[in-house]
């Protein structure tokens, strides 16, 4: 089931219209600030369920109060962000969108081989928001759905597309493919084919930052599915006891392959698991790049000053199946029909329109530049040769 994000703004709006009881769609996720607002104003909260209404108690009574750090991680007003940062959001999101549309099309035409191309369509705001808040010297670990993270951290889309085609000029000479792209120089410690495996690796990078006494931050991207792996619990505990400079960035798209997080997770809110490890944890709307950036920027600044882990749960929507070719029989028509509503680029447009300095031609210029860059990347990849087959027994050990 798709998650509705209920923000403080939304609750305020309803209260302003005279509503004493806030009735929400089943499966809605309420942000901590919205909870606080509801409590402070003595509003009643109900969830609609199959025609009947059920009252829901806030089960983390002290959430947001015990964790004073959370207060510092509140959202900033997108209107105050420098315009060049706003344009950077768009540049990264549209670049990811173009790349993934090409990846999808080439997979559907069977030009990209193999069963596993996991595209990031619909989730672009998270990679764009997070990586804009990072410096080049910062590090990320990624997932099986990693193209967006790579692009946002600065990876070369020509070498990426060549890798998807299994060509010699790809990031890994074609030996890695879609799920195995790394570029240490850019701080990309690797995508990963194993769910949850990047979290310990990210802890090691954060440990390296501590041993080096540098102020770099590591972001471990993972999904709602990975939060059910043992590595998740181990890594949160490890990061907490050593006060590691790390952000656990959960991309909750509601599906672990085809299994819904409603079914597979003991709590609909992964951030609550972070609280259990005594880690400042926060829920945000992952479809809103401004919100992602603000939350991440604040967390990064906080961590650079005072090393500690943070967990951010960014709720988002997976536009496609788990992999290209997934028939998605498990998704309801409502779920699929609602998707355009959550499109991060559309949400971005709605917000940017409110800025006085907004000029649509800036976005048009970026779009055409990225389009050209993408065409060149695809041509580069197509023209690249395959590695001579006998080279496939090399590169597993350094001579």
């Amino acid at each position: 089931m798709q998650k509705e994000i209920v923000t403080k703004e939304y609750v305020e709006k309803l209260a302003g219209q005279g509503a004493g009881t806030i009735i929400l769609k089943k499966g809605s996720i309420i942000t901590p600030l919205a909870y606080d607002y509801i409590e402070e104003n003595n509003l009643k909260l109900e969830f609609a369920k199959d025609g009947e209404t059920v009252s829901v108690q806030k089960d983390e009574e002290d959430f947001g109060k015990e964790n004073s750090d959370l207060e510092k991680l509140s959202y900033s007003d997108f209107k105050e962000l420098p315009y060049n940062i706003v344009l950077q959001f768009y540049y990264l999101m549209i670049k990811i969108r173009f790349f993934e549309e090409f990846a999808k099309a080439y997979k559907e035409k069977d030009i990209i081989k193999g069963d596993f191309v996991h595209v990031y369509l619909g989730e672009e705001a998270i990679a764009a928001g997070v990586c804009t808040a990072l410096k080049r010297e910062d590090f990320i670990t990624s997932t099986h759905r990693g193209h967006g993270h790579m692009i946002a951290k600065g990876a070369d889309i020509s070498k990426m597309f060549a890798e998807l085609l299994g060509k010699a000029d790809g990031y890994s000479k074609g030996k890695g493919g879609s799920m195995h792209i790394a570029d240490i120089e850019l701080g990309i410690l690797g995508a990963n084919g194993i769910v949850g495996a990047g979290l310990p690796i990210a802890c090691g990078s954060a440990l390296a930052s501590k041993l080096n006494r540098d102020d770099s931050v590591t972001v471990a991207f993972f999904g709602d599915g990975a939060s059910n792996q043992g590595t998740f619990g181990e890594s949160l505990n490890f990061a907490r006891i050593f006060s590691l400079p790390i952000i656990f960035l959960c991309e909750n798209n509601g599906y672990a392959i085809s299994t819904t997080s409603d079914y597979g997770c003991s709590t609909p809110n992964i951030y609550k698991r972070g609280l259990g490890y005594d880690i400042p944890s926060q829920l945000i709307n992952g479809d809103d790049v401004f919100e992602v950036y603000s939350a991440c920027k604040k967390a990064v600044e906080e961590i650079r000053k005072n090393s500690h882990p943070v967990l951010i749960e960014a709720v988002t929507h997976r536009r496609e199946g788990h992999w290209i070719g997934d028939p998605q029989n498990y998704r309801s028509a409502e779920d699929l029909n609602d998707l355009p509503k959550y499109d991060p680029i559309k949400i971005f447009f709605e917000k940017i329109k409110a800025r006085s300095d907004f000029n649509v031609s800036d976005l048009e210029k970026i779009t055409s530049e990225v389009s050209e860059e993408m065409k060149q990347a695809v041509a580069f990849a197509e023209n690249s040769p395959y590695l001579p087959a006998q080279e496939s027994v090399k590169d597993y050990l350094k001579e």
Partner: protein
Amino acid sequence: MRKITFRQAISEAIEEEMLRDPKVFIMGEDIATGGAYSGVTKDLPQKVGPERVINTPISESCFTGAALGAALRGFRPIVEFMIGDFYAVAADQIINQIAKARYMSGGRVTAPITIRLPNGGYLNQASQHSQSVESIFIHTPGIKVVCASGAYSGKGLLKSAIRDDNPVVYLEPKILYTAEEEVPEEEYTIPIPGSKILSKGSDLTIAAYGYQVNQAKEAIRSLPQYSVELIDLQSLSPLDSETILQSVSKTGRLLVVQEDYAICSIAEHIAFLVYSSLSAKIKVRIISAKYAPIPFSPPLEKYILPQIEDISAAIKEMLGQE
């Protein structure tokens, strides 16, 4: 020359390498509290400073994966497992992450990690603390596997493992921790790969590693009438095939002795190597553990694991028929 235990040899290797290279650090359970099974790091925090002796929670997947993360950032982590059998808890991080990191990047990254695994039986520690775990790693491209037979090779191999730019699984036969051997004060390393011929002979080649080298030595000593060449394999992956083949070309007979099970093992590989490279007529025998989980009870464990008399009997059988 001074004699030190295998345990002391490991301690010295770690300490020397940490003092030599500030990028080396060690992680593992109970290593800074004095509670670790191997006990090799007991005095390390005082000697190299506490920062690089990281006492971890019991989270094998996490600290093994963390070793990779730190290695990608230029460090040379040593990971100590309390008992080798626990590798299985972190198998994904070793086999899917660490071993494949270089290959999946097309050879652009290195993962210089030393994974220390206290290995094997003869100590009545039952099925989850007595296994010989080498085969899975030998079967995994991207990771080197070495095994010492005592303090001398223990120190030299560990120093080489720490300096190696690749991941190395360093197997520590637990039964040898208290065994003493002559070890020079001066610095030395042992190349990986590389085996060592411990005794020259003309009639039979014995290839062994770890504790079995010690058992084979005893068996050979008890049978002075035979001319046996003993090779300590030292490096199981990559394997020094050349030394084995040269020796067997000369002796015409090969006995491989290992504590691991025979099926899908290095011993079976060596047997195949000899048959396919030399001649199918060469007489080859394997002594290994019998195929069952390692039992607790002393007489039962003794039955499962190779004994000196098994080796002696095989030598007699192989040479007595001439």
